C-alpha cells in the first residue's frame, strides 16, 4: 500500500504535505512544531507542554476555548500533545470544514500573543499541575515517566528532565516566557503542516497559502547542545522505587539506535519479539509458562537524536519478588543474546507490525500524523510509504546483531517499583494480605 503524497514549502519556510483520499468526506489537519521538552531551558521544565495548553486559550481572532468550540461545532475532533522532540496539534473534520481548521491553526501560529493573559496562564498552570497529579503523582507507578529518562540520559542531556515538569518550575512560568518561546519556536519555518483525506489539491494549496503565507519566518532557534551519546550506558544502572503499589513492576531500558537509523528497525523488531502480544518471548515464557509475570509489553520512545530507548515493561504476579522478576527477565535477555532469535519469531513480529500499521493508516488523522512525523524529523514524508519494506527487510541476523551490541549488561537500566512497607499513602485496608483474603 502506498499513499499519494505531495509536498511543497511556502516562502516563509512552512513545509506542507498533502495526501488525498476521497473514500469518506473527512479531512485531517495536522501541525507539528519541531520543539519539545528537549528545548526547555533550565528552571522551566514542563514549559513546552504548558505552552501547548496555552495554544487553546485563544489568539487574536479566537476567544479562549473557542478553538474547541468551533471545531466541535463543525463536527470535528481535535487535540494536541507534547513529546521530547515535538509538539503537535490536530483536527479531523467533515471535509467541507477544511478551511476552518487551517484558519484556526494559522491564527494561533501568526497571532497568539494578543490573547495571552496572566489569568489564563495562572489557570492553565493549575490545570497542568492537576494533570501531573492525575497522570503521575496520584497514580501507581506514575512517576516512571520522569524517572526512566532521568536514569538513562546524563543530567545535562536534553532528554534527561521531566516532560510534565516540576511543580516549582510550572509556578515560575511567566507571560514573558510565553512570548519568548512563541517567537523562538512557533514559526512557520519550524513547523510542518499535513493535510490528509477528502480535499481538492489546488483548493488546499490556495487556502494554505492564503492563511499561512503572510506569517513571517522566524529568526531561527537556538541549537540544541550536542546530543550524541555512547551506544551503551557503560554499566547496569538501577533505581529501586518504594511506591504505593501492590505488585513489583520493572521497566528495563536499553539505549538503542536512534529512530530513523537503519538499525532502528532491527531494534523495533527485537522489541516486538520480546514483548509484542501473547506470542512474544516474555509473554510466552514468563506470563504463560512460568507464571512469574502478570503482564508484559515492550516499546521504543522513537527519539531521533543521540539515542533511542527500547523498554521492557513487566509486572510481577503476586508472590513474586522484585529481585526474582528482574532476574528472570535478565535471564531471558541473556538467553536471547546467547542463542539468538529465529526466523519464525521475526516473521511473527513483522506480520503483526504490518497489520497494526495498515489498521492505523485507515484513519485520516493517523495518516496526517505519520506524514508530519517523517517530514518534521527527516524532511521526507515519503518515508511513510517505505515503512513496510523497512520492516520486511529486517532479518534474524540483524536482530541478533542488535541484541549482541545493545542488550548486554553494560547497557541496561532497571527502574524497579516495589510495594512500600508501611506506606503512608497506601489505600487504607489495601495490604496484600487483606486484599487476597
Amino acid at each position: 500500500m502506498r499513499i499519494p503524497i505531495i509536498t511543497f514549502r511556502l516562502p516563509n519556510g512552512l513545509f506542507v504535505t498533502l495526501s488525498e483520499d476521497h473514500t469518506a468526506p473527512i479531512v485531517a489537519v495536522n501541525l507539528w512544531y519541531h520543539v519539545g521538552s528537549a528545548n526547555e531551558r533550565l528552571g522551566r521544565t514542563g514549559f513546552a507542554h504548558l505552552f501547548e495548553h496555552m495554544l487553546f486559550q485563544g489568539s487574536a481572532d479566537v476567544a479562549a476555548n473557542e478553538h474547541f468550540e468551533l471545531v466541535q461545532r463543525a463536527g470535528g475532533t481535535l487535540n494536541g500533545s507534547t513529546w521530547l522532540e515535538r509538539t503537535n496539534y490536530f483536527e479531523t473534520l467533515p471535509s467541507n470544514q477544511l478551511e476552518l481548521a487551517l484558519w484556526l491553526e494559522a491564527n494561533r501560529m501568526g497571532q497568539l500573543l494578543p490573547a495571552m493573559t496572566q489569568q489564563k496562564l495562572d489557570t492553565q498552570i493549575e490545570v497542568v499541575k492537576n494533570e501531573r497529579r492525575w497522570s503521575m503523582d496520584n497514580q501507581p507507578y506514575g512517576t516512571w515517566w520522569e524517572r526512566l529518562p532521568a536514569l538513562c540520559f546524563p543530567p545535562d542531556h536534553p532528554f534527561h528532565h521531566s516532560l510534565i515538569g516540576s511543580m516549582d518550575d510550572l509556578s515560575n512560568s511567566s507571560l514573558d516566557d510565553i512570548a519568548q518561546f512563541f517567537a523562538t519556536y512557533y514559526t512557520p519555518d519550524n513547523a510542518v503542516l499535513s493535510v490528509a483525506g477528502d480535499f481538492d489539491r489546488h483548493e488546499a494549496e490556495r487556502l494554505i497559502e492564503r492563511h499561512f503565507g503572510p506569517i513571517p519566518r522566524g529568526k531561527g532557534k537556538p541549537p540544541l547542545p550536542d546530543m550524541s551519546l555512547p551506544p551503551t550506558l557503560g554499566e547496569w544502572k538501577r533505581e529501586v522505587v518504594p511506591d504505593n503499589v501492590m505488585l513489583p513492576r520493572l521497566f528495563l531500558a536499553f539505549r538503542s539506535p536512534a529512530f530513523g537509523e537503519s538499525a532502528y528497525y532491527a531494534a523495533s523488531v527485537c522489541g516486538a519479539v520480546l514483548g509484542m502480544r501473547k506470542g512474544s518471548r516474555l509473554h510466552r515464557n514468563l506470563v504463560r509458562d512460568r507464571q512469574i509475570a502478570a503482564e508484559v509489553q515492550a516499546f521504543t520512545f522513537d527519539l531521533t537524536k543521540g539515542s533511542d530507548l527500547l523498554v521492557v515493561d513487566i509486572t510481577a504476579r503476586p508472590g513474586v519478588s522484585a529481585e526474582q522478576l528482574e532476574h528472570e527477565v535478565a535471564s531471558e535477555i541473556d538467553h536471547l543474546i546467547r542463542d539468538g532469535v529465529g526466523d519464525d519469531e521475526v516473521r511473527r513480529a513483522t506480520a503483526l507490525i504490518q497489520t497494526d500499521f495498515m489498521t492505523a493508516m485507515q484513519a485520516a488523522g493517523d495518516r496526517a500524523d505519520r506524514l508530519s512525523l517523517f517530514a518534521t524529523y527527516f524532511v521526507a514524508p515519503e518515508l511513510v510509504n517505505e515503512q513496510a519494506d523497512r520492516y520486511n527487510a529486517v532479518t534474524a541476523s540483524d536482530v541478533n546483531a542488535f541484541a549482541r551490541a545493545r542488550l548486554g549488561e553494560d547497557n541496561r537500566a532497571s527502574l524497579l517499583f516495589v510495594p512500600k512497607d508501611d506506606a503512608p499513602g497506601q489505600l487504607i485496608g489495601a495490604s496484600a494480605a487483606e486484599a487476597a483474603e
Partner: protein
Amino acid sequence: MSATVASPRPKPGPPRDYRFPAFERLSLPNGLRVVVAPVTKLPVVTVAVVVDAGAVCEPRGHEGVAQLTARLLLEGTARSDGAELTERFESLGASVDASADWDCSSLTMTALTDNLDPAFAILAEVLRSPAFSAREVDRLKAERLAELLQLRAEPRGLADELFSRFLYDARSRYSLPEAGNEESVQAIGRDAIRAFYEARYVPAGSTVIVAGDVTVERAERVVRAALGDWQGTASSSASTIDSAARSDRAVHLVGKADAQQSEMRIGHVGISRGHPDYFPVVVMNAVLGGLFNSRINLNLREQHGYTYGAFSAYYWRRQAGPFEVSTAVKSEVTDAAAREVVGEIERMRQQPVSDEELSLATSYLDGVFPIRYETTAAIATALVTLVVHGLPDDYFGRYRQSVRAVTADAVLRAAKAHLRPDALQMVVVGDPELKASLAASGLGPVRVYDAQGRPTG
C-alpha cells in the same frame, strides 16, 4: 508584532454526502446470523463474533465467568495448546481479542484481506472447540486476582468499582465488577466455565459481523465453510435487576491517606439503551458534560482550575446503566468541586439550554458521525451495538436526523426526567480527613470506607 492574517471566519463549503457503510444480513440454517459490510479502502478486514453471553447471564456466585470463558477461548483448542494457537494467529499477522461485557461476549479479529480465510478458520476453531485446560483456567483466574489486587492501589479503577457497588442494589449484577470480584472468581472452576460455554456459545443467538475489504459472497463462503455445521440449542435470555441501592443523596469517602487528588464519581442509575428518550438524553448529556466545552468541564477546569478534566456520561446497557460524572480534583477543593457538579446538574433541570449550547451539541454529534467510522474495527463495533441492542437496520442511516430533531424543550424534559440531583451517589477516593469538609458542605450523609469498601467511620 506579527503579520496580520486577519480574515473573516471561514464558512463551510457544501457538505458531501456520507452514508454509513451498507451492510447485508444473512442467516444460516443453524440459526447463526451474519452481517457483512464491504468497505474497500485498505486491504483489511475486521470480524466480530457476538455471542449472547454477557455478564448478566452469569449464575449467582460465579460473577466473572463470562469474562474468563471469553478469554480462555484464546488459550487453547482441541487441536492446539495456547502457545501454538497464539503462534498460528500471530504468524498470519492477525490481531485477535476475546472479552465479555454486560450484554454479550465478543471475539474480534483484524487481519489483512489476504489472510482472512486461514485466520477465520482458526477463529471458528476457537469458538467451537476451546480446551479450557485446567492449567490455563488457573492462570487466567490468577491474572484476574492480580488485576483486582492492583485495583486496591489504583484510584481511578477503585473509584469506578466502588461507584457501581454504592450505586446499585446489592442483588443487581451491576453492583459487582464486570469481570467478577475476588470471592466470585475464586469460586469459578473449570466445570463452571465449561457449563457456561455449553449453555451460551451456540449458533442461534450469535452473529458474525464482517467489515472491510471483502465481498458479501466471499464473507458468506468463509463463514459457511467454518461455521455452517456448528450445532447447539438456543439459550434462554437473561437479565438482572437495575434498581438503585438507595434513593437519597450520599457521600462515600474511600480513604487514601496523603492523597494528592480526590478521584470522584458522582451519579445515579440512568436509563436503558432502548429507552425512547435516548436521543434527547444524549444531546442533554453533551451539553452537561459530554464535550470539552460542556458546562461541567468549562466550570471545573477552565473557570476554576480544579482539575485536568471533568466529564459526564450515560453508560448504555440493555438495562439501566449508570449516569456518571468523573473527575479528579486537588484535595482541598473536593467539596467545592462536588457542589459545582451538583449545581450544574440542577441547572440542567431548571432552564432550557441556550440555542448556542444546543446547536453545539447537535452539530457536533451530527458532524462527527462519519469520523467515528473510519476504520473496519469501528464499523464492526457499531454493528455489534446494532445487534446487541436490536436496533433497526436504518438506525445509522437515521442517526443524524434523529440528533438534529432534538429541541431545547426535549432536552429540558430529558433533564427533568433523567437527572435526579437528590439521588446522586458521590464516591470520593481521597484523603479521609476530607470527611469534615464534605459533611459540612450539605451534600448528604458522609461515610468513610477502606479500599475494600468496608465502612471505617
